[in-house]
């Protein structure tokens, strides 16, 4: 595909293909619906992933989901079930190993290459169509069967309903675990329940965007939303909107061509994040940001700046940033 001299025209032609677009749109409406569902789930789950600082865990779960799907492919079983088993199992293990991100990070780091290695092993043993192999890692060329769509609808309902029921306690436990526990909330149980919902969401995403790129759907939209606001309700709405834009937009662009869907999705979602990050940068320079719009508080707050050296998750906190 790449001759000695790069043929830009042919690259652009293969990236953006809109021949017979109307017909394709009808043919592949299943994919669109699947993408829309995924956008909703990804946007919602992503906000909690960000609140709980679980980005790295998501990546680890995705690798094990990939291993599960590859195993299912090898033994001729259902890929959806395989990836579900892999990711829910991984999510549960991570959930039980460490309540907080700090404890589980190293564990995820151990688990992730193991999952990826297992998956590669299963794939190399598999002798079927090679396009199946590739799609598990990098996302498939748009084609979602009615059966697949049905299973995604069911899984989406489970995840969204679970999140709605647990919404307030989960938010409380995610942002303020010490006080939530003192208030009598089952912080640990909530954490495990969320890990299961996360596992399901990851398994859904792996089917469409691939194991390597799940973060584009489960992290980037929520991160972009948090660049713009700290109001929880607005974060959720923005996160879902961004995820839908990336997902549905990505599918619409990918419909005609032969390139997997994931580069489109990841590019859109990154572009959105970039724009929001720039907006945030400008806003933080404005003095009104820290006070939430009102005038600056006069009494000195340099006095306890050293205490902010470390955030609750052990993340280094830039003191200059804290002081606005």
């Amino acid at each position, binding site marked *: 595909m790449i001759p000695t001299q790069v043929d830009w025209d042919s690259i652009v032609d293969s990236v953006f293909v809109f021949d017979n677009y109307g017909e394709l749109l009808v043919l592949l409406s299943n994919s669109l619906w699947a993408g829309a569902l995924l956008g909703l789930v990804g946007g919602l789950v992503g906000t909690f992933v960000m609140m709980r600082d679980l980005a790295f865990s998501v990546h680890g779960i995705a690798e094990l989901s990939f291993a599960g799907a590859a195993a299912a492919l090898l033994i001729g079983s259902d890929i959806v079930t395989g990836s579900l088993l892999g990711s829910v199992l991984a999510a549960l293990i991570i959930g039980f190993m460490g*309540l907080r991100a700090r404890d589980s990070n190293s564990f995820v780091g151990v688990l992730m290459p193991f999952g990826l290695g297992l998956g590669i092993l299963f794939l190399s043993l598999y002798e079927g169509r090679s396009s199946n192999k590739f799609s598990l890692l990098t996302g498939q060329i748009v084609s979602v069967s009615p059966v697949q769509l049905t299973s995604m609808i069911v899984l989406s309902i489970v995840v969204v309903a679970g999140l709605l*029921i647990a*919404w307030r306690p989960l938010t409380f436990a995610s942002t303020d675990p010490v006080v939530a*526990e*003192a208030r*009598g909330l089952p912080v640990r149980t909530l954490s495990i329940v969320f890990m299961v919902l996360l596992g399901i969401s990851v398994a859904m995403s792996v089917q469409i965007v691939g194991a390597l790129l799940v973060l584009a759907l489960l992290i980037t939209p929520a991160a972009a939303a948090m660049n713009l606001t700290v109001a929880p309700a607005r974060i959720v709405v923005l996160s879902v909107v961004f995820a839908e834009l990336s997902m549905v937009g990505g599918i619409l662009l990918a419909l005609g061509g032969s390139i997997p869907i994931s580069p489109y999705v990841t590019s859109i979602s990154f572009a959105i994040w970039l724009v929001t990050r720039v907006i945030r940068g400008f806003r933080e320079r404005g003095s009104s940001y820290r006070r939430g719009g*009102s005038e600056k508080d006069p009494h000195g707050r340099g006095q306890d700046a050293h*205490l902010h050296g470390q955030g609750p*998750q052990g993340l280094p906190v830039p003191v200059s940033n804290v002081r606005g």
Partner: protein
Amino acid sequence: MTLPTKVAPTIHTSAAQPATPSTTPWSAPDNQRDSGQAVVELKNAELAFGDRVLWRDLNLTIREGEYFAVLGSNGTGKTSFLKVLLGLLPLTRGTVSVTGERPGAASRHVGYVPQQRGFSPRTPLRARDLVAQGIDGHKWGIRLRRRAVNERVDELLDKVGAGDYANAPVGLLSGGEQQRLRIAQALATDPELLLCDEALLSLDLNHQYIVSELVNQQRVDSGSAVVFVTHDINPIIDHVDRILYLAGGSFKIGTPDEVMRSEVLSELYGADIEVLRSNGRIIVTGRPDNTHHISSQEGLIP
């Protein structure tokens, strides 16, 4: 904001008689120890981790309106005492009840003010969201009564003087501002018992005073009992009715004047301790483990 002018420790002199079997000869006139509802009751309570007994035979009744301080060095079971009252840690022996119920079941009657830990600057909460979590954060489902909750939040923010930064991200507020929000959050359910866990630690003097006053205000206004865990009694000395002083497996209960004395603490520690009083402040010297820790490792979550 002006710095507080320190006054000598007030000894509350309501009409009740000395009731607890305090052995000190010069027992001060007592406060509401005998009247009012029992908010916290411990009977023959013992807490031990394996062989290590933190305290045993602890009999204690804290009544409404009482300001009760728990003092001691690190590792003496101060935080564990709070965990017991919150129902997060079972006693190894004896019984405990909070507002007449099992501790965990009473959580709606208990306001909890944690140590100031600092939120990450990107924490997706505004000041008002933090307070709102104190109102309905424990309920299932999504928030439907937005207006009612918002009104209550505004009320609480005004009460603690945090209205100015209601919409600011909590992660960008100073430690003192965050602790004001913590008080507002703890007061959300108008609790009968206010538990403060090193709530003044790492605050500057001005905010120590403000937060301490806010806690006391709730006691005066609503008759809440206050249990304040701290390693330094001075910021709250003006309000404290009684002290539980924990040290190396033993403890002493009594008014500040009964407990904060050289001979009492020397006996408790089994070492020479000197208690100095200067300008209304109490200074304990010679404590074997007199460490002021900035961030406690004894958080509620491991």
